[in-house]
């Protein structure tokens, strides 16, 4: 059981470091769809929590942004030199914004 898990983990690790074209493209698509989802959510949360406005104002102002965030992430995933870099970039921004949102929520 343990060896199966270990082999699966090793396989996954190898795939994630893979540079062949198909794996790269699959990783990029995954980054665009799921990385984009995560990035949009955390940026949106940070935005509405950082805005020092009434709730309703912040809410209806924030609707202007998700299309831009998500499309930006999508383009970024394909513009990065490698898929691994794309994932790294998206995750760094996602977690920074998530952190910001948590801090803002805590301060509130």
């Amino acid at each position, binding site marked *: 059981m343990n060896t199966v898990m270990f082999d699966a983990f090793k396989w996954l690790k190898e795939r994630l470091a893979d540079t062949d074209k198909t794996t790269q493209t699959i990783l990029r698509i995954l980054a665009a769809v799921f990385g984009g989802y995560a990035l949009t959510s955390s940026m949106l949360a940070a935005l509405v929590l950082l805005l020092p406005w009434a709730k309703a104002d912040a*809410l209806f102002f924030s609707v202007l942004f998700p299309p831009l965030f998500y*499309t930006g992430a999508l383009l970024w995933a394909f513009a990065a030199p490698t898929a691994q870099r794309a994932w790294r970039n998206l995750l760094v921004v996602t977690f920074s914004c998530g952190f910001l949102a948590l801090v803002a929520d805590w301060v509130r």
Partner: protein
Amino acid sequence: MNQSKEKRSFTRGMSELHTWGGLVFGWLLFVIFLTGTLAVFEQELTHWMQPNVRISEVEPVQALASAEKKLRQLSPKADTWMIALPQQRHQDLEITWIKGKKTVENHLNPQSGAIIKTPETEGGHFLAHFHFELHSGKGGLWLVTLASMVMLAALVSGIAIRRQVFKDFFRLRWRKNWLNVHTMTGVFTLPFVLLITYTGLTVTFLMLLPVAPQVLYGSSWKGPQSVAAKNFERPRANLPGELVPLTSLLPLAEAELGKGKISFIRVRNPGDQQAVVTFFRTIDDTIVAISNRAVFDGVTGELLGSQTTWSKYVHVYRSLVGLHIARFGGYPISWLYFTAGLISCVMIAAGLIFFTIKRRSRYARNSQMAQWMYRAIEALNITAITGIIIACIAYLWANRLLPFDIKERADAEITAFFSIWLIMLLHSFLRSPLRAWIEQLRIAAVLCIGLPVLNALTTNVGLLPAIARNDWMTASVDLTAASLGIILAITAWRISLKEKNNEKLLEQQSSLSSSSSSVNLPIERIPL
């Protein structure tokens, strides 16, 4: 060195995204854009699909009186009554009552107050809905959202890989090949596509990714309406109360919202002591797609309050919605959106066709698998482009041809739409691509040009009687279908000319070089 490598990979990444994202989502995008374009005339299509509902102009007060009388008679103890008054582009008096889980909708003659018997139909509403949900709820909404984002990304990446298209466009270097048709229509409709895609996405994201409301409101979130609008609702008292005549409230509501501007009336708990009557203003003359409203106590007739101003960000958000649904500017704006939508459809179609043309000679020399994939792409192109055109026009045909009183008639029309589309999918796999293109274009042309004939034969709102009665809403559907049919017929004819040329060319080549078995046509001579 490193920089140039990064730059190369940037262009390659963008072109990969544009080519494959554009292909896979292009099928979907054509479908979304075409049905969305038709949905600009949603009300006209609904009007056309209800040939029995033809009423003469009346004063709002008289229409309301008839509606009120009928509702009091049909369901005095309902949970909700709704009345849609006749409008310029909604020439129909519609009453709805809801009791528990039961919802009943009727069309009334505003003069006599009698119910008009009319076959059930979803009308243009189906196309408008299909345009963003693909008839499959939240999954469809996500798919449309992803496709729209790929559309935005494809615009950016398309410009990134071919910056000279702007120069070519403004220097009027318009050549007649599929790539050029794609890029030139792309530049031409760029502002429209940006606007329509962006505004559409702002709406879907609030439904799909309610991060902001959840962060701000948590579980108390009850939809954007509950935050934007003042709440005048109140619970049922379960004590009987005589409902004040709605007609007596109409002048008071008009004083609040403007004379002749009331489009919709909702009564909650009629016959109860806590009844509430809300009058909604039309949005047909404003870009901010949100209804001003006046709310009255249903028993005393006293004004509970009204809302005619909105917070500035609600204004911004609903203006984006208004820009998307294009109800604000009357017919000039509708036709502008319709035309821009059709040109965008041409842009998407030309891109899809160019994908196959560019690869036709390459795949011919490739493995069996690659050839099969290429064949599938070509068939899906045909299904997504001409197939959906045929399905849409067949939906209108089904409305006229299905028997009057079959059960679930509205669903039967939608089933016809999907089955015809499925048949077109099979057809495009069974016939050779070029034959399939020509045949499906011909079917579409015949159905479009035949629509006025069918309408004249099966109803009494045919083209000539409709024009005589000044019923341009019906006549324009006929006329537009016929004109689009003529365009489709010309396209079919020109492609069949190419097919003939192509056959001649093949004969010449084989007589010239009878030794070589494979014929390599120069790329510009390949059909389509």
